């Protein structure tokens, strides 16, 4: 059993505006093995709040949450070691600046594992491994994390969480601010980690192309409600995603437009550019 949300709501309180409910009555189940899930929704729909619940960084205002057998309620329970939950569910924040602080990349990656009573030598080994996993070579180990480029910083921050060897990995917009090629490399990497280690990976993203191409399960948030939970194909084929303030993937948009303008009868649900191109060729030849 991985993570289960039971009627979870969360409200932010502020002095001037009173209570603002970020997520409402969420019911959700995530198993700890072999899932590859996209979490989508417009800005302010409660995606990040939902993600912060997954490793008990914040507690639900109402409802309960079960994470690897620990029951999380609205109060801090002294019997629960919250650090254990964070070891099992790793959360990578959107901006690497919030977590990088050591003078070398190696030390920074070691910070996570060392908090979980792992020896220095072991942590060093883990740092090397996880840096390789995110596609950076050993020459980065001795560099200063603040002198890296945006994409490299992002990879280092992901490596910092990977080194903790969590069972479930949650990433808050890991591809934001990267160029298209960089996005794909990173997504391939996550897919690869998911397939080789069987870790469940949950990724928050705004990029519908990536969602359609890579993920088999998708969660859609809209105004704090979980609107959709199911197969990615089902989302784009059966639902009108514009209702959720989302966009269609480019392949679907282009093929739909061509169908309309040229009176063709193509199957618009093609995941990659290559597949879309093949479909167009097939339609034009006929």
């Amino acid at each position: 059993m991985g993570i289960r949300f039971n009627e979870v709501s969360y409200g932010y309180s502020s002095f001037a505006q009173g209570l603002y409910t970020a997520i409402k009555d969420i019911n959700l189940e995530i198993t700890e093995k072999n899932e590859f899930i996209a979490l989508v929704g417009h800005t302010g729909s409660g995606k990040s709040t939902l993600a912060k619940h997954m490793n008990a960084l914040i507690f639900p205002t109402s409802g309960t949450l079960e994470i690897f057998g620990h029951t999380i309620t609205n109060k801090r329970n002294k019997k629960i070691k919250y650090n254990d939950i964070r070891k099992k569910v790793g959360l990578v924040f959107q901006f690497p600046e919030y977590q990088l602080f050591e003078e070398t990349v190696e030390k920074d990656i070691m910070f996570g594992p060392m908090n979980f009573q792992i020896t220095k030598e072991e942590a060093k080994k883990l740092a090397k491994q996880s840096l390789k996993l995110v596609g950076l070579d050993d020459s980065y180990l001795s560099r200063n994390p603040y002198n890296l480029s945006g994409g490299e910083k992002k990879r280092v921050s992901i490596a910092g969480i990977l080194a903790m060897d969590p069972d479930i990995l949650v990433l808050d917009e890991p591809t934001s601010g990267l160029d298209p090629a960089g996005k794909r490399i990173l997504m391939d990497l996550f897919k690869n980690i998911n397939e080789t280690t069987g870790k469940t990976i949950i990724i928050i993203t705004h990029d519908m192309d990536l969602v359609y191409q890579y993920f088999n399960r998708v969660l859609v948030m809209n105004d704090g409600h979980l609107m959709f939970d199911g197969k990615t194909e089902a989302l784009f084929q059966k639902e009108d995603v514009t209702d959720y303030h989302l966009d269609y993937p480019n392949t679907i948009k282009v093929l739909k437009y061509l169908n309309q303008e040229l009176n063709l009868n193509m199957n618009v649900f093609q995941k990659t550019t290559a597949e879309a191109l093949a479909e167009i060729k097939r339609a034009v030849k006929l």
Partner: protein
Amino acid sequence: MKSIIIGQYIPGKGLFYRLDPRTKIIAVLLIMISVFLLETIEQLLIGLATAIVLLLIGKISILKVIKGLKPIMILLIFTFIFQIILNREGEAIVSQQMYFTVYTLLFLILAFIVWRLIAKLIRYRFTLFFLFAAGVFLILSYVDFGANIANPFTFNIYRAGLEMSFFVVVRLLIIITLSTVLTLTTKPTDLTQGLEKLMHPMKKIGFDSESFALIISISLRYIPTIFDEANKIMLAQASRGADFSEGKLKDKLRQVISLLVPMFIIAFMRSEELANAMESRNFVPGEKRTRINELYFSHGDIIATIFSFLILALAIVLKVI
């Protein structure tokens, strides 16, 4: 953190919201000076009543102000206690023989344990603390059996001490209430603009009031932002296993660094972005700027100023007589 009302602006309507910030600053200053001129407790109580009447006139919820005083409570209690213990003038009102014996120690430890246990179960922390303090007092005075560890001593409360402590606490209360009214009803930007205008004449002696006001308004503006960032950093490090409510002290010290470094880096990044944004909107330091909202005096301002001058005059008259 969010319950601290001092320095907070709460949007609303009322007499004080319509006043010019300059008037409010001057009025608060004048009334504060008057409060310091007062000499007897009766006068001070009248002063407190005036402050409360001001709150009522301004339609500011007294409950909110009292709630906001909570963090100051500790300061007030300490001043009260220190005044009582250290001031040794006048006749003694309370004179109590105190003993410190082996059993006293035992009872003290017992009382401490009971206090901490109850504190875990119920929430009235202040009340419990007072009960504990009273308990310590009773133990020290009545447990007189057993071998003495220290020599018995006399605990005295003098009339002047009691009066002085009451005096100081009421004075502090008035001052805090007044300044809360000022910050509660004035936007930080208006406040700094008022300060800037008031200090403008000081330019002749080389004091640049505009830069000063800018510094203040930027710092005020960035307090919530930085606070927000600190919160995010804390969460990010907590998800790397650096949770401050768990773990040993040695680990915690290391983890503090993991908060401070990103904090500084982000503060520097923010300031650089702000500088760029200001420059790209043609901000030149020291150049004359125009304002969207110019300040102007109304009838209410004149009345408020006259009122505060009257209070000062009254206080001076009372002092001289």
